[in-house]
């Protein structure tokens, strides 16, 4: 026994009932195999040796005394940096269903102690706001019935692709064509794009799996899926491969990996799908990229041209640029020129009240070929919790506003608007994406949904997991530790990518067919959308129905 006085409690001492997740362990089922403690990425549970006093109550003996039972058991760590994240890996490896995390409905006092060692809480994941989003609540109410019969999703032919790249006004296209002048490059792509998740953010196996899956979608299934790299460059073998045409290369404010890319240009077999210049991200708007030292492995260090094991925060802005005008002028033109004006170059910005002015600036730049807006529900591999939870701007009204601004100028889709941020957050990926398309987006980027659907990411909106930043991803998706990422088989990921996009395509047809649409993606088909909230309907300029 330990005396009460000897249990030292400090201000940040917590009990396991203060934590968001409580490990339920059934000693009657446990065989003490130790798999759970071995697999736990947070060391939230540990095997421990305990002694239990067993009072001797033999009344015939004069001498009273104790006996001690010794046993081995599993206990939960209550230190903040080792607290359970609810990932459930312990229960997935337990042969006896003896252990598992359960959410703690109590107020989580751990929230007040996340700033250990004077450092604010950083995490990966998304906003951790559960419940239906505005996107989930939008429904497609315009159903073709009589004058315009609904189409057959299973039998009719559908064209669901979108255009990435600047679209000229028809008059201008005809004029330039006749004069033999430069026509901005465009790509016909699938409207659901695998959003920027960097090589560095993701494990090599995850990246390989995505790439294989994307190639399969394009070359076998005929679904022209493209994926973006995120900041941090692209593995040299991909740059020199014919698969580069499915890749959107991102250049962000840290310029990580760009010397490799520039050096590879003469050896490229084909052009990349596009160049994305990252000015902002929805999950941490106004903040640069962040790759924490845990994940800067030897490979990543080499690829990015940095020492191993150092934090790699990108600056919040492109340091050489002073204003959006200058950014547009310098970066978009320079990048277009680097690829001989054959590759679309577009910026990615965070959703914000100033998105419209950025857009108007782009419309007037002949080399800008799109705009990606990332809203507050976007995900990330690492960011300050406060940025993720409380900074940003929702995507739906932002996209709608931008689109309507273009409509007023008769220039809709000239600069295709792509939307990101929480698409598929609650699993309704096609519905969310198509709703954004009908609000005016030409396509959407999906990141976390892809991780969840294609690699089994465990994170959810109840604060589950969220450890992408520290390289201990229990599924091996966002880890650079080979012991962890070997858990993920790239072939399986590729299979899931193909499954996911095939089913998105089917669901798109199931949405388009009842609306009587098959020839072109219903971009801006706002008459099809309804919502059961008058204010939202007014704000988005769609029908209110209840």
């Amino acid at each position: 026994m330990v005396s009460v006085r000897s249990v030292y409690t400090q201000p940040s001492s917590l009990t396991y009932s203060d934590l968001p997740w409580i490990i339920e362990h059934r000693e009657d089922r446990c065989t003490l195999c130790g798999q759970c403690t071995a697999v736990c990425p947070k060391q939230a549970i540990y095997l421990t040796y305990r002694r239990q006093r067993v009072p001797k109550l033999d009344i015939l003996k004069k001498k009273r005394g104790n006996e001690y039972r010794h046993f081995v058991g599993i206990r939960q760590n209550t230190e903040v940096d080792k607290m359970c994240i609810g990932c459930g890996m312990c229960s997935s490896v337990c042969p006896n269903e003896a252990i598992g995390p359960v959410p703690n409905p109590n107020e989580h006092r751990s929230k007040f102690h996340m700033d250990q060692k004077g450092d604010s809480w950083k995490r990966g994941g998304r906003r951790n706001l559960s419940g239906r989003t505005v996107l989930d609540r939008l429904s497609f109410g315009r159903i073709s019935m009589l004058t315009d019969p609904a189409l057959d999703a299973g039998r009719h032919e559908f064209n669901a692709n979108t255009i990435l790249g600047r679209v000229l006004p028809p008059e201008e296209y005809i004029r330039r064509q006749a004069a033999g002048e430069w026509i901005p490059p465009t790509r016909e792509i699938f409207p659901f794009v695998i959003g920027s998740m960097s090589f560095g953010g993701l494990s090599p196996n995850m990246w390989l799996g995505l790439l294989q899956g994307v190639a399969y979608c394009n070359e076998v299934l005929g679904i022209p899926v493209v994926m973006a790299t995120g900041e941090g460059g692209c593995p040299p073998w991909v740059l020199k491969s014919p698969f580069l045409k499915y890749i959107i290369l991102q250049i962000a404010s840290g310029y990580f990996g760009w010397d490799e890319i520039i050096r590879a240009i003469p050896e490229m077999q084909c052009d990349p799908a596009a160049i994305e210049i990252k000015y902002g991200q929805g999950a941490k708007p106004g903040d640069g990229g962040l790759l924490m030292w845990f994940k800067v492995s030897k490979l990543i260090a080499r690829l990015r041209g940095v020492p191993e094991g150092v934090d790699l925060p990108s600056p919040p802005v492109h340091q050489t640029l002073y204003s959006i005008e200058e950014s547009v002028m310098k970066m978009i033109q320079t990048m277009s020129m680097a690829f001989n004006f054959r590759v679309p170059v577009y910026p990615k910005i965070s959703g914000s009240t100033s998105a419209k002015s950025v857009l108007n600036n782009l419309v007037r730049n002949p080399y800008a070929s799109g705009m990606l807006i990332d809203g507050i529900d976007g995900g990330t591999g690492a960011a300050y919790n406060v940025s993720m939870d409380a900074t940003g701007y929702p995507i739906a009204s932002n996209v709608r506003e931008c689109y309507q601004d273009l409509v007023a100028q008769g220039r809709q889709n000239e600069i295709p608007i792509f939307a990101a941020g929480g698409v598929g957050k609650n699993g309704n990926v096609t519905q969310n994406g198509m709703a954004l398309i009908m609000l005016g987006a030409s396509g959407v980027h999906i990141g976390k949904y892809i991780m969840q659907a294609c690699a089994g990411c465990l994170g959810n909106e109840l604060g589950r997991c969220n450890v992408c930043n520290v390289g201990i991803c229990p599924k091996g998706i966002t880890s650079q530790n080979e012991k962890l990422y070997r858990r993920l088989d790239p072939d399986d990921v590729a299979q899931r990518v193909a499954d996911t996009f095939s089913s998105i395509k089917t669901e798109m047809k199931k949405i388009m067919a009842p609306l009587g649409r098959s020839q072109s993606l219903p971009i801006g088909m706002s008459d099809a959308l309804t919502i059961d909230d008058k204010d939202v309907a007014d704000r988005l300029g769609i029908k209110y129905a209840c």
Partner: protein
Amino acid sequence: MCRLALKTADTPFSPYEVLTGMEAMQEGYDGSGLGLLLRGVSFEDYKYKKDEQIILSGIAHTEAAFKRLQRLMEERGFEQDYDHRFKVDSSQIDTSDRYQYIVRVYKKPEGLTEKELEDRLMQTRLFLRKNGEEHGNDLTIFSFWSDVVTIKEVGWPLQVGDGLGLNDERIKARVVMAQGRQNTNYGINLYACHPFFIQGIATMTNGENTAFVPIKEWLEGKKIPGYMGYQSDSEVFAHILHYVTKRLNLPLAAYKHVITPLKTEELNAHPQGDFLKGLRTACRRLIIDGPNAIIGTLPDETCMLVMDQKKMRPATVGGRPGAWAIASEMCGVEALVPDRDPALDFQPMREHTVIIPPERKELQIWSQFDQFTLSQAA
């Protein structure tokens, strides 16, 4: 579903003939309205001169509106040459607020270039329409153009024809377009009744255009005069035809490439695939969706028929040299040109544009897979 009929012939004929053709297809419409567009017009009691005169069509709903119209036209310097009075039998007409159906011939203003004249006529039509709207819709103006008469009215087509005395042979035309049924997708409104007209170009359609809202928003955003109204989802088809032929100066065969472009795989094998892929991208906002057969006429009396990509609305064309008919149903063609060889009737497929040239000798059947007749596109 509406029923459409068009007849084009070398010798002018009574529009009532087309109404009887409509009657053959009577099961296909509900008698809620009639739209008629006449081109190559001749009047029994007046020698109309196409090169020198223009015709205003519409309805004055009150006497005040009629007088105002007269005054406004005078103020704008249009000199009236002839006023066609229909012998109205009001017992056959459902509506009561029709003071006068207007078909008035004016002198063409002089000293204007062709472009200036076209703009002037359209601006005048829009001005009068706006003026009517400002006065509680007491004035409805359908067209103002040389050689075009437009009549629209609520009611059963044949009954409307009887009510307006169209069978008295006093008015004839070489091209007549007719559509049964008012607009049902949006509000009932005389302007929403087919055919739609802009600067000599007219189309009528059945079915519904699902892509209406984005197309409408784009056309409106262009701020091109005349691209307005849109009381019907298919009014955009006339404006797209206008845009393609007048603004982009592309041949008529390009219309189909704009509204229902070929697939990428098909264009990859097309002789002008690169140009057409670019055109598809540039005009992507004009792609129509939904079941539509679009029948149209151009100022030179060319007639045309195209289908939507899935060919979900029937339409057939038949005739003989000198007289051709396009109708939603075979029985419509039969009623309009009975003395043709029915074996030569043609139902266009999704890739076809049927063009009846002004000389009316034979049909041109244009396939989207054919080479495009455009030097710059080669």
